[in-house]
């Protein structure tokens, strides 16, 4: 597994290529890319995190995914700092022999990241700044995996 928490942007093509580089046992790579939406005149999104715990929490989430599915490679990148609408926030890429495991693990990692990794978003708008509230739908999405779905 490979985890990065960084202010800099990243380049998706090489990240995806790296998940199967030099091997021929990968049948499928599922990825997710999260972007800043410009809803309601958003000027920028500020991403705060808990240095030290962040990497630990992401590693733990990936270990749980690896225990559930036969994964060949996992990459997680999460940006912090000030991001503009349209910019990349998060990338999760999972390589496996078959597509079902790659899809499931990629979605699992995103769902757990959304509810267990210590990141917080603050919206900068023309009317001022406000912290983003956690969404119940994110808790529900993560809870699906506990129910064995």
């Amino acid at each position, binding site marked *: 597994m490979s985890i990065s928490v960084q202010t800099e942007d990243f380049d998706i093509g090489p990240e995806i290529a790296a998940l199967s580089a030099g091997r021929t046992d990968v049948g499928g790579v599922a990825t997710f890319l999260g972007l800043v939406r410009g809803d309601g005149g958003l000027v920028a999104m500020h991403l705060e995190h808990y240095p030290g715990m962040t990497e630990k929490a992401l590693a733990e989430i990936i270990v749980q995914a690896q225990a559930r599915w036969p994964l060949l490679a996992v990459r997680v990148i*999460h940006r912090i700092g000030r991001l503009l609408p349209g910019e990349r926030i998060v990338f999760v890429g999972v390589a496996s022999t078959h597509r079902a495991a790659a899809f499931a693990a990629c979605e699992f990692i995103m769902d757990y990241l959304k509810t267990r990794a210590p*990141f917080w978003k603050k919206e900068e708008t023309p009317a001022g700044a406000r912290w*983003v509230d956690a969404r119940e739908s994110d808790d529900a999405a993560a809870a699906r995996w506990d129910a064995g779905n």
Partner: protein
Amino acid sequence: MSIRILYFANLREVLGCAEEELEALPAGVVTLGALREWLCARGGDWAALAPGKSVRAAVNQTLAQAQNGIAEGDEIAFFPPVTGG
């Protein structure tokens, strides 16, 4: 018992405090829940830690529950539900 407490995001702003070192805790404060109550009892903005407020916590950088024990040298963190991704 000496511990370090970190506060993040909205909670940090409301409390006006990012981090504090506590050199001595009262004898009864041996769990995360008891620590939260004790901090809340400071009054004023610390009511942000009151029961019913949506606050999450970690002990030594791992998510933890109220009954989780705390020990000398621990790094405790309080923060709102996470919103990354």
